[in-house]
């Protein structure tokens, strides 16, 4: 593996105003090599990749592609040079067919007399598409299928096929597994292995150390816009990579004050969001002063269950008792009954990104912010300012638009909404997804404070991150294929047993 690098970035620097996002970062990847780029949110991974793909121009530094100077001025330059990016959010045209998507922008056109008309040679387009899919070893995707009908995993493949069809030499995968189920992740890894053997240079960006260990040859760690370390993946223990990312030991991330479980606040009795869709009846009790976790794989139905309990989706059967209230209820009633929910989809549902911090934070409880049905902005701002200060939300003030905040601070606004409403039962769906470690630590601490102390509340937590569940919960139940298992004390679980149960390997 001593070949010359396929591409090389050296001393790359980029500042946005006073904030230095990248401070002399270097990265090199050889052909036939998978290099993992790891680091926390805000470490500079996205900025570095934006520079590589031509979306941003660096302030300083040098880039070379196969030894030749490389300075893309716009994304099209990078694509023409053979640098392809596969982003978290896929960029396909859902109404077009697979082959139309694959040749989009590089359609083979008829030449000769009719050349100027730009007529697409449909046969050639299909052939290009089939060839690309074949290279990926996937004959199960029909070139004529409509992309919108495909699963997320298949769509991702189409996107990779598009990159191959445009003759890419460097392939960047940004959090490619975030929307994939277990099986599809394995298939993706096989595919990456195949691309590697074909001599592609692959950059693999991920939060998940286990994935990095499995798929990459080398890793490069970024921290605060600088290289924090690199090495051969196989020779480095996972813990060491994490330590490089965090810059300190990760112990003490999950505080645990003395908690005492009190009376049940929420009783869910044989509730199913929809038995026709394969949801078994779920039962559990959530007590005051405890955090109950629900583990499970993506698509196990955890979110559906929460949404049914909160009234965002219908309940097909069963009884829900919340405090003194019985029966299903709409969200506005749930808030009034003392239950609040944090959505897993922060940008799409959790927050109105175009509205101010104050508007988002006080949305559920506008009463009391003015006489009668009036809402006084000054009182709204005062209420928001209190939470901004309490949670250390980094913003220009209560009137700043939420969409302008960083992910972690946005999430704190979403959490503050539940605190401002002062609900007794907090339903948190993936509260730490996609936020930086500092904000995560703060949210863990907050959850701990909420369920301890003199007037504890109750937290129902859905998370796909097992260490987090094991760290903060008192009891954990596992949901697998629409079926919720019994809640057991956290001491009876470990990552291995949770995963086994979640994947249905120990169906009982």
């Amino acid at each position: 593996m001593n070949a010359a690098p396929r591409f090389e970035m050296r001393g790359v620097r980029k500042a946005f105003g006073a904030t230095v996002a990248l401070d002399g970062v270097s990265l090199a990847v050889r052909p036939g090599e998978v290099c993992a780029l790891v680091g926390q949110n805000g470490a500079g991974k996205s900025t570095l990749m934006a520079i590589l793909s031509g979306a941003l121009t660096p302030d300083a530094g040098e880039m070379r592609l196969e030894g030749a100077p490389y300075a893309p001025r716009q994304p099209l330059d990078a694509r023409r040079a053979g640098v392809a990016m596969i982003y978290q959010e896929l960029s396909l045209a859902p109404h077009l067919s697979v082959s139309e998507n694959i040749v989009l922008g590089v359609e083979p056109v008829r030449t000769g007399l009719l050349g100027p008309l730009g007529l697409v040679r449909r046969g050639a387009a299909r052939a290009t598409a089939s060839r690309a899919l074949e290279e990926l070893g996937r004959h199960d995707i029909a070139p004529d299928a409509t992309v919108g009908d495909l699963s997320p995993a298949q769509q991702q493949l189409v996107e990779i096929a598009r990159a191959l069809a445009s003759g890419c030499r460097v392939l960047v995968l940004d959090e490619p597994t975030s929307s994939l189920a277990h099986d599809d992740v394995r298939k993706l890894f096989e595919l990456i292995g195949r691309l590697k053997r074909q001599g592609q240079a692959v950059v693999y960006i991920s939060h998940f150390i286990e994935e990095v260990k499995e798929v990459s040859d080398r890793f490069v760690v970024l921290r605060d816009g600088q290289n924090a370390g690199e090495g051969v993946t196989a020779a480095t223990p996972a813990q060491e990579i994490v330590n490089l990312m965090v810059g300190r030991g990760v112990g003490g991330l999950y505080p645990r004050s003395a908690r005492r479980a009190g009376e049940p606040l929420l009783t869910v009795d044989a509730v199913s969001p929809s038995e026709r869709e394969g949801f078994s009846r779920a039962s559990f009790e959530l007590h005051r002063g405890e955090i109950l976790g629900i583990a499970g794989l993506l698509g196990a139905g955890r979110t559906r269950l929460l949404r049914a309990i909160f009234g965002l989706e219908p309940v097909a059967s069963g009884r829900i008792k919340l405090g003194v209230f019985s029966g299903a209820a709409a969200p506005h009633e749930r808030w009034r009954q003392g239950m609040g929910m944090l959505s897993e989809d922060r940008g799409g549902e959790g927050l109105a990104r175009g509205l101010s911090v104050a508007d988002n934070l006080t949305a559920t409880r506008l009463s009391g912010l003015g006489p009668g049905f009036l809402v006084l902005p000054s009182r709204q701002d005062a209420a928001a300012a209190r939470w901004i200060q309490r949670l250390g939300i980094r913003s220009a003030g209560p009137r700043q638009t939420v969409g302008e905040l960083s992910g972690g601070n946005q999430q704190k606004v979403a959490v503050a909404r539940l605190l401002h409403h002062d609900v007794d039962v907090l339903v948190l769906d993936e509260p730490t997804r996609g936020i930086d470690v500092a904000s995560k630590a703060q949210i863990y601490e907050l959850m701990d404070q909420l369920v301890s102390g003199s007037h504890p509340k109750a937290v129902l937590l859905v998370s796909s991150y097992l260490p987090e569940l094991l760290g903060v919960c008192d009891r954990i139940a596992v949901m697998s294929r629409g079926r919720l298992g019994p809640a057991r004390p956290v001491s009876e679980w470990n990552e291995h047993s949770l995963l086994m149960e979640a994947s249905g390997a120990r169906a009982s």
Partner: protein
Amino acid sequence: MSRRRFLDESGVLIGLAVVALIFGALIGPQFFRAANVELMARQTVIVCVAALGMTMVIVAGGIDLSVGSIVSLSTVAVALLLRDGVSPLVAALGAIGAGAVCGMVNGLLITQLRVVPFIVTLGTMLLVRGAAKGLADERRVEAPLTWLNDLLRTARDGGHLLPWGIWLTLALAVVVSVTLRYTRFGRHLFAIGSNERTARLCGVRVNLVKLAVYTSSAALAALAGVMEYSKLSVGDPTVAVGLELDVIAAVIIGGGSLLGGRGSVVGTMAGAAIMAVIQIGCSQQGLPNWVQQIVTGTIIVAAVALDRWRAGRP
């Protein structure tokens, strides 16, 4: 108020000042004489009243294409009721009630059938227009003269300076503006327009609020229809064709976004005023109608382009 909102509204107010000054310079100081300003106000008052409702609808991320038809239905309703000997106040309230029913139908179709507002109100635009023509037997409906005909008449003798209809419009503008900014209903409209799913998560009764906003919008359109009747003195089922586009244009020039979550009454009023100044200014300058249309069209596109450009800069 925030810097952002101030900028939003200052932009359109500066635009209004610039347009007025240009015509002032072309035509001379008589352009700003009280009588002329009042003429412009009378010209735009119908658009303004309907635009108050449209502002709320657009803030909530919707659109209402049926307002022009509701205006015509309202003129017909007033005329028919007056002809039947009903008192003018009851006739006006009856017309507003008929409009509100149309709006409620809009709201119910949008929330219950989950059809997008553009399509629903495109349908009811034709439906209501047809109903107005049917009610009126496809003719103008003559009605006795009452005080309703004086709503927009200049009061030379009275001490109230402006016609009653304009005072009423200004009062409604204050009410709608306060509603949008300082009430729970108003904040809920912004929440729905900005992100409907968030609004639902936060316990906003989205369907109820939408029903209310389409009903109010249509009621305001019907009030605009009463004023139109006042101007025409007859019920005319063919009047106000395409008025909804002027109304939407006023909201958009005033900083409203068709994507929802943005818009203000001050902006909308200024937007309507800009169009009125151009209209009156062009005709007093002796410019033909086609010039006026080209200028108005340019202003609409320029206003939105300017807004995008400004939004791109923090």
